[in-house]
């Protein structure tokens, strides 16, 4: 599948969604006024027009090809995203910054098959350093 075609379709869908959302999500202007809908409408229409051109360009011309699998995140990327989500969930559940972050860095290093105790020690020390910088120096209330 050509990258221009996939990209064009994605933007076309996004442009159409914006266009249909405007009446429900953006208040109408007073009669005769240039209101809050003006720019979103221009952007949505421009996006739709340009994405159609991109699709046509992709269908007629030569451009980079990519498989659907190639666009989807790799296993490692998905697991990294999952790790980020778990860090957020851990904090939301009140596990605390230090325990959640310690689990995060250790799991991250294991995920990337990192060897050597020194690397793990540096990562653990870094968690405490970050806590010190944010909680003590910058006075950020970490969960």
């Amino acid at each position, binding site marked *: 599948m050509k990258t221009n075609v996939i990209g064009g379709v994605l933007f076309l869908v996004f442009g159409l969604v914006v266009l249909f959302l405007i009446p429900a999500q953006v208040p109408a202007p007073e009669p005769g006024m240039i209101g809050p809908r003006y720019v*979103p409408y221009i*952007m949505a229409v421009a996006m739709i027009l340009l994405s159609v051109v991109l699709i046509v360009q992709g269908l007629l*011309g030569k451009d980079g090809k990519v498989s659907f699998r190639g666009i989807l995140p790799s296993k490692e990327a998905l697991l990294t995203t999952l790790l980020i989500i778990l860090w*957020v969930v851990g904090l939301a559940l009140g596990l605390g910054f230090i325990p959640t972050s310690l689990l995060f860095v250790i799991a991250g*290093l294991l995920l990337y098959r990192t060897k050597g105790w020194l690397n793990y020690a540096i990562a653990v020390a870094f968690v405490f350093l970050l806590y010190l910088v944010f909680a003590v120096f910058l006075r*950020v209330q970490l969960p």
Partner: protein
Amino acid sequence: MFANILIGLQNAITLPALIAMNFGVFFGIVIGALPGLGVAMGVTVMLPFVFGMETNVGLLLLLGIYCGGTYGGSITAILIKTPGTEAAAVTVIDGYELTKQGKSGKALDMALIASTIGGLISAFTLLFFAPLLAHQVLRFGPPEFFSLGLFGLTIIASVSGKSVLKGLLMGILGVTLSTVGVDMISGGQRFTFDIVFLYGGLGLVPSIIGLFSVAEILLKSHTLSTAKAQAVSKLDSKMGLTRAEFKESLPAILRSSVIGTVIGAIPAAGAVIASFISYSDAKRRSKHPELFGHGSLEGVAAPEAGNNAVTASCMIPMFTLGIPGSVVAAIILGALMMNGLIPGPGLFRDHAPMVYSVMVGMIIINIFMFLQGKLLLRTFVSFTKVLPSLLMVLVLLMCLVGTFAVNNTLLDLIVLIVFALFGYVLNKLEFPLPPVVLGMVLGPLVEKTLRQSLLISDGDFSIFVTRPISIVFLLMTVLSVFFAIRRQRKLSK
């Protein structure tokens, strides 16, 4: 002006500012020297830290990273043939040849001196030229600012990446995303879905960190389990640059500094272009062009002076017009706006001590960069021993904590995750990411001035073509797109 410079100097040599500049330069050189991280990521990662600081101190920290990172890219380019940043790609050609000949000390010295001179010339240009330009901009009204914003959006969108169309689409997407939240003119909600968190709009920090840092880590994640540290085994820094060698390369350094300064002031041209043009100019004018590609010191000096000369001059359009000259300038512009400051002539009028302290600080930053480069080279080189997987995990955690710290809300992290995935997919589809950020930063300015202009003219669009400055910017907008399309067609043939 000189009174302002003195006040700026006073504010730039306070202890917090000096610490921020030094830390920024150090962090920047480390980030720049590590292949795969890049200056934009370095500035992005530190973005949340600037919120707890005074505006000028925070900006000096970010600018220190920018200058240090641009120079730092040359270290690994010279020593291990792997440029730490894109802008140092040309430095590899002669820098690594010199290392093979056992002259890495000379090459590193030359890169540092050339970077410092380039940075200083650029910083002085910023200090003396920006206030003059800002004074001229005082005559601008909403129509001029609209045309200018449009020009800024299109020129950067059209030169980013291989496809003009993809760049423009990303710019449009950025402007669309900037409309989320409460409309500043009418007070109505737009695309908020009655979620209170979205009333203030999509946060710039989580969006930028998601797009530039986390997406980059996700893209690299599948190589991390096998990636090894590209450590420098031997550093031959004893044989330094001689006075005669420096004298011979000085004309190339000075010419490249001017080239870089001029290119930096043009929105979107950037450090990569500056280094390539500087290199080819130095080769053309050199007394020994045959040495280029075989270990020429001028071949190291020219690109390094050129790329560092971009760092300060690219702030000229940002400070005076609100148009960032590079991705990093766009991120710094975002930092300014998040502190409630609107770039443009008003910045020089209402916040002169802050602006002047940053501009004077750019000179001091380059001096610190020289000192750190001279004294701490071995320390910087030792960072190349860090495993990429460890580095990425630590950077990722820093991104997450930093994003949380800005507003103390976990909801910002959801924005970060969405933008990271979005950046990942669009990167695979070869869409350039910088125009999205520019759209998000410039979108509110473009929308506000468009609506104000049409209010002034009772909805008559001729207001944009009846004012000379506005016409000039609109013509430049059309020409920038036209030339970008022509360049793209030439390249595809």
